[in-house]
């Protein structure tokens, strides 16, 4: 993390507070309190809704009925909603689909984007400006839904998982971030490799990629989140309900207030509230990204800096 702000701050243990620079004023007590309060409030504004969702997913029907909706103060604890969701049926199937599409899609997108970003990272190479313009233009206009649908259909991609990956595989923004990072890699390294006879493929694989772990992690996360939370393409390109990813099933359960029919018996026998099921699906949809992001977080600064700052 601190690699970007070299110098002054000595690192003594990962979590220890670095010494305050001597020129900085001591913060006033009121200032500290204000800061703490603001941060706490901001965190609360975010954690409170999250808390309600998680807690509700863990409550019995009786508690939820008594609360008349989402539960703030938990009474008891039951995993019945999760058990139901994970023992076969539509949700489990959908979760597997989502994992599969996310992994494949992210790999594919990363491969295409990294190649493209490196290919464009050499200013002055042939066609460089044209390609770049071609990329940039897409950021500002798009095609309508119907032509896109007809195209995907004509390519025979409807009812195929490719329809969830190919049309959204390339994010120009992500390519630009990667490109900016690649351009920042020490040219001496690359030059010396070139003098040793390495071609561009070798340079990319052996030098550029190992040095770009931070940005690769960040962009992978971006792509993964994109694939994981996408639902629109599935809703129009897939006709087979068995193929629907988790987000679509969640929308069906939550937004349309449908009950998962596979759970009808449990719900009907009064042990399980439909609301708990809905919340449990949401937690499931949220879990992978929530677990993953702290690991990628430490790369954020480095990855985002070059990317976002320099576009």
């Amino acid at each position, binding site marked *: 993390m601190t690699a970007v702000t070299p110098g002054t701050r000595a690192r003594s243990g990962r979590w220890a507070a670095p010494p305050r620079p001597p020129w900085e004023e001591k913060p006033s007590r009121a200032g500290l309190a204000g800061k703490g309060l603001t941060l706490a409030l901001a965190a609360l504004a975010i954690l409170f809704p999250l808390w309600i969702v998680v807690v509700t997913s863990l409550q019995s029907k009786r508690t939820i009925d008594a609360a008349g909706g989402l539960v703030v103060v938990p009474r008891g604890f039951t995993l019945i909603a999760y058990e139901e969701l994970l023992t076969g049926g539509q949700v489990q199937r959908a979760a597997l689909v989502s994992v599969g599409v996310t992994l494949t899609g992210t790999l594919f997108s990363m491969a295409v984007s990294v190649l493209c970003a490196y290919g464009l990272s050499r200013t002055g190479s042939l066609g460089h400006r044209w390609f770049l313009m071609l990329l940039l233009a897409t950021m500002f206009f798009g095609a309508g839904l119907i032509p896109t649908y007809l195209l995907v259909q004509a390519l025979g991609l*409807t009812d195929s998982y490719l329809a969830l990956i190919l049309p959204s595989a390339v994010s120009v923004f992500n390519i630009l971030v990667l490109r900016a990072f690649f351009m920042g890699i020490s040219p001496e390294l690359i030059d010396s490799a070139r003098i040793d006879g390495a071609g561009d493929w070798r340079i990319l694989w052996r030098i550029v990629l190992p040095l770009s772990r931070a940005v690769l992690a960040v962009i992978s996360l971006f792509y993964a989140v994109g694939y994981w939370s996408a639902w629109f393409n599935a809703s129009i390109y897939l*006709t087979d309900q068995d193929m629907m990813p988790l987000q679509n099933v969640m929308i069906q359960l939550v937004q349309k207030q449908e009950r998962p029919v596979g759970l009808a018996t449990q719900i009907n026998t009064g042990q399980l509230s439909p609301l708990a099921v809905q919340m449990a699906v949401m937690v499931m949809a949220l879990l992978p990204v929530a677990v993953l992001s702290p690991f990628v977080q430490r790369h954020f600064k480095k990855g985002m800096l070059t990317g976002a700052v320099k576009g």
Partner: protein
Amino acid sequence: MTPNSAPSAPSRRSFLASTAVAAAAVAGGTPLLTACGGGQDGNKDGTTSGKDAQKILPAFVASSVVTPDLPSKNGSAAGFTRAIDLKALKTSVPKKLGGGSDLKIMSPFWGSPPAGDNAYYTAMNEAIGVKATWQNQDGNTYDEKLGAILASSDIPDVVVVPGWNLNGKIPSAINAKFADLGPYLSGDKVKAYPNLAAVPTDAWQRSIFGGRLRAIPMPASYVTNIAPFYRKDVFAKKGYTLPKSPDEFLAWAKEATDAKAKVWACDDLKWTAFNIYGVLNGSDKALWWDLRDGKLVNRIETDEYLEALEWTRKLYAAGVVHPDAKAVKGDASNRFTAGQSLVFNGDLSYWYGSTAEQRTQKTDFEMGAFDIFGPDGGDPTLWATQPAGIFTFVSKTASERQIKDFLALADFCAAPYGTKEYMLTVYGVEGTDYTVKNGLPTKTTKGTNEVNGAYDYTGDPAAYLAHPDLPEIARLQVEWQQRMGAFTKKSSFYGLTITEPNRWTNLANDFEQLEDDVVRGRKKIADVQQAVADWKSKGGDDLRAWYKKLLDDNGSAAK
């Protein structure tokens, strides 16, 4: 309504049937309107009725397999309140008719469809003699999907289309993409499929699209399907008496609302308000019109329409409507069963669905539907809905064998209550999908998951209601329909499937939104009047003339 599927699913579909605004109905009537002879397939507008329809319609041969103990009266469904004697099931399809073709069926689905290869589907295929595979689509967004799929060159062999999805250019797509079933069903030909021959002629009439018999209809009672339900148990406990007029209702609602305790008197009651004030039926654009003193009048031009909106607005303004209903979030029946609202309106099938669901946990739960009252507390004037609202089509690229096999499937699914075919279609395989307890068939978990509505629309007998586990509910439902049926009139275009010319199909699409804005206090009644004036000048009056000509040329189908 097929009454025995999962609780919330069937109700929603039919509720939608009545609430969604069907932009256009369809049918060719080429000979009648343009006299360009031959009546080729294509996106012709108009309708077909009278003599021309007679040539196409299938013959009617009543089914005598099982007699209902509550026969249809005043347009009601027939009621079966006795449990089926499972040992004495009749047979309505003596010979397997299917020839083993593959049929890919696309259908809307409310809820979670089962996996494709399950015991129920296999047993159905086996019994019918086909290899049907299902493409079940989310019913709530079916129109989005339908439009795109019909635009492609690869449409499924069989496609189910709810009447309320006949928007925009879909009617022209239907005429262009689906086969004429006339050669297989018209006149006496239908007798090869006895269960289809027992489908009422009213329903078949609705299946004439583009001058051709293109669909298998799902018959329905023409009595309004929107019932105002109330919590009978709560009313008894609190000592409330049923309101008998709009004013009484408002007064009661103010008294019954206790927001602090999270109880509101009612949910959104716009559709009931339309019934109370005698507004022309809104479920199909053709029903919006009625001939009055020699002039066609549209529902949006009537005083009743404005009065109904005004009364609903008062309910909202008084704060007696559940706030989530105001936000159009969540599910009205859930709020009702949870006790957060005491009155809600929904499809008649909620009566059974919600009761069955609640009986498993709270034995004291009881709901009822109150009789719709008139604007002054007297008898109401109700308008008939269409006698069929969901249609199943066959692709025109299907082979003759496939069409015949589809008809075999439809005939099987149209088997009446009390037959072996009915039991398989509605309950699945005995021992796997249902077991028999105390002489009553009860679905197993597997049955609940698998037998949940796939075959609901691909062939149905005349409208009926039957709940062997709660026979009393079937009786109450039928009796409610019969009482309301006595007040029900048929408007000028009742029973006809009409294709409006493309340029006018979207003309009135914004009114439903406007209604919702007005009742929630976001717009004024004056805005509706302005919108009606705009509607007239932008084509409403031309549309009126077009409908008038249709009426003069064809006559009304209403008796």
